[in-house]
C-alpha cells in the first residue's frame, strides 16, 4: 500500500507535466519531423503525396532565382535592422542611465512600440514611407520637403534592388526600445564601485564607457544580438503589412507561405520551412546551450 503511494508521489510531477509535455512533443518536435518528411516528397496539390525524393526540393530551391532573392533580402534586411537596433538601443540605454529626470516617462515612450503589432506598425509605416512623387508626395518624403531636407527623399521600399533595406526602418523603430531594455538591465547590473573606481583613476566618461562599461556589457550584447537575429530570420508580418507579397521584397517566410498555401506546392514549401528552422537553430542553439550551462553552474 505504502509502496503504491510512494510510486504515485514519485510520478506525480510527470503526471502533472504530461499534458503540456505531450503537446510540446507533438506540436513542436513531431511536427518539425513531419515538415522535414514533407520536404522530401513531391507533394504538390491538394492531396498529400508521401513519396520520397530525397533532397531534390532543396536542390531545386537553391537553384531557384526567387529563393536566391530571399537569401539576399534576408541579409540586406538583417544588417541594418540588427545593427540599427543594437546601436540605437545601446544609445538609449546609456542616455536613460544618466540619472535623468522623468526616466520612466522617456522609457515608456521608447518601449511603447513593443506593445503594438507588426501589422499596425506596417500599416502606418506604409504611409510614412509612401514613394509617390511630385504633387502626390506624402509621408516622410513630404516631411523632408517641409523641413528643407529634400535630399533625403527616396523611393523607400520601392527602390529597385535595395527596397528591403527600407523595411529595416520600421523594424528598428519597433525593436530598439526592447534592445534598450536589455542593455539597461545590463547597465544596472554593473556595481557602482566599478564606475567609482574608474573615475577615481581619472577616466573620462568616454574612457569609462569604452574601456570599462562596454566590455562588461558583453553578455547582454550577445543576448540582444541573438534575439534580434532570430527575429530577423523570421520576419514576415511587417513585410506583408508594408508591401504585401512582392517579389522585390520577398523573404523565406513569405515565400514559404505562398509556395505552400497559395500554390499548394507542399514539398518545396516544407523545404523552405526547414531552411528557416535550420538558420534559426544555428543562431540559437549555441546561445541556449551556454546560457543554460551557466545557469546550472550558478
Amino acid at each position: 500500500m505504502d509502496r503504491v503511494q510512494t510510486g504515485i508521489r514519485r510520478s506525480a510531477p510527470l503526471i502533472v507535466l504530461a499534458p503540456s509535455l505531450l503537446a510540446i512533443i507533438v506540436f513542436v518536435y513531431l511536427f518539425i519531423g513531419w515538415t522535414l518528411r514533407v520536404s522530401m516528397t513531391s507533394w504538390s496539390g491538394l492531396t498529400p503525396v508521401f513519396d520520397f525524393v530525397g533532397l531534390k526540393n532543396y536542390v531545386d530551391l537553391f537553384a531557384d532565382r526567387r529563393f536566391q532573392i530571399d537569401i539576399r533580402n534576408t541579409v540586406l534586411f538583417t544588417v541594418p535592422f540588427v545593427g540599427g537596433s543594437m546601436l540605437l538601443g545601446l544609445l538609449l540605454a546609456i542616455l536613460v542611465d544618466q540619472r535623468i529626470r522623468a526616466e520612466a516617462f522617456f522609457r515608456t515612450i521608447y518601449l511603447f512600440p513593443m506593445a503594438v503589432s507588426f501589422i499596425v506598425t506596417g500599416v502606418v509605416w506604409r504611409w510614412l514611407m509612401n514613394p509617390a512623387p511630385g504633387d502626390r508626395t506624402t509621408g516622410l518624403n513630404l516631411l523632408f520637403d517641409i523641413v528643407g531636407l529634400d535630399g533625403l527623399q527616396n523611393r523607400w521600399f520601392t527602390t529597385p534592388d535595395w527596397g528591403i533595406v527600407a523595411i529595416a526602418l520600421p523594424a528598428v523603430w519597433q525593436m530598439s526600445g526592447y534592445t534598450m531594455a536589455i542593455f539597461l538591465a545590463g547597465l544596472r547590473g554593473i556595481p557602482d564601485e566599478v564606475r567609482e573606481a574608474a573615475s577615481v583613476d581619472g577616466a573620462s566618461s568616454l574612457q569609462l564607457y569604452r574601456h570599462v562599461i562596454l566590455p562588461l556589457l558583453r553578455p547582454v550584447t550577445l543576448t540582444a544580438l541573438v534575439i534580434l537575429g532570430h527575429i530577423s530570420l523570421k520576419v514576415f508580418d511587417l513585410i506583408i503589412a508594408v508591401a504585401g507579397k512582392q517579389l522585390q521584397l520577398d523573404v523565406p517566410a513569405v515565400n514559404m507561405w505562398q509556395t505552400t498555401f497559395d500554390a499548394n506546392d507542399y514539398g518545396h514549401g516544407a523545404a523552405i520551412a526547414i531552411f528557416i528552422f535550420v538558420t534559426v537553430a544555428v543562431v540559437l542553439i549555441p546561445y541556449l546551450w551556454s546560457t543554460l550551462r551557466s545557469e546550472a553552474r550558478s
Partner: protein
Amino acid sequence: MSAATRALAPAPERVRRSWGHRIQRLIVVYLPLVILAAFFLMPLYVVLITGFKPNAEATPQSMWTPPTRLDISAFQTAFEKLAPNLWNSALLVVPGSILSAIVGSVNGFVLSRWRFRGANLIFVLILFGMFIPYQAILIPLVQVMQSIGLYGSIAGLILVHVIYGIPITTLTFRNYYAQIPYELVEASRIDGASMWDVYRRIFLPLSAPGFVVVLIWQFTAIWNDFLFAVILTRSQSWPVTVALNNISGSQIVEWNVQMAAAMLAALPTVIVYLLLGRYFLRGMMAGALKG
C-alpha cells in the same frame, strides 16, 4: 532590485551642479533624449491627427498638418468595419491568456519545486519550443486542425496559442516560483501537506504578480499575432490583425480610415502597456532568458 534602490537614493551630484555642467547635460543628454522621443512618437502623431480629421482635410498631402476641427467620423467608419474582428480578437484573447496562465503556473510550480530525474531535460525540451520559427510546424498544424475539425474556428486558434504559449508561460512561472523560499515548502511538508496542497495554499496566493506578467504577455502576443491567425481562420473568424491588413491593402478604404483602424487595433495592448508597463517589461525580460 539594486537598480530601483539606486534610482530612489539621492544622487549626490544632482544636488549642486554648476551652470556650465547643467547646460552641458542639457545638450549631451536631454536634447538627444527628446529628439529620439520625437522619432518614436512621430507615427503616433500622424495616426492621431489623421484619425481626428474631417474627411475633406484628410488628404495624404496634408499628412503633417493638424486638423482645423476634431471629427471622429474616421473612427466611426473604422469601427464599423473592424467591430466583428475586434470582437473575434476579444473572444480569442481572453480565454487564450487565462488558459495559458493556468497551464504555465502549474508547470512552473512543478519544475521549480519538484526535484526529479530528467527535470532539466524536460525544461530544455519545453523551452526550445519558444524560439522555433512557426513556419516549421505550419503544414502539419493545418492538417491536424482540419482533421480534428478545429480549422477556421476561434476555438482552434485558442488551442494553438495555449500550446505554443507553454514555453514562455512555464519559464516565467518557474523563475517566479524559484524566488519563493524553500523553507515554506519544507515546513508545510512536515505538516503532511501534499504537493497539491502546497501549490494551492502557499504558491497560488503568492502568484498574483506572476499571473499579471504572464497574462499581459499572452494578451499582447495573442492580440498581435498574425501568422497563426491568417493561416488558421476564415473571414468570419478573422481577428483584428488580419482584418486590418486587408483594409490597408485595399485601394477603396480612405487613408484616414486606415489610420483610425490601426489605432483601434493597437489600442487594447497600448492601454495595457501604459497601465501595467512594469509587468510588461518583466515579461519581456523573461523572454530574454533573464527572469
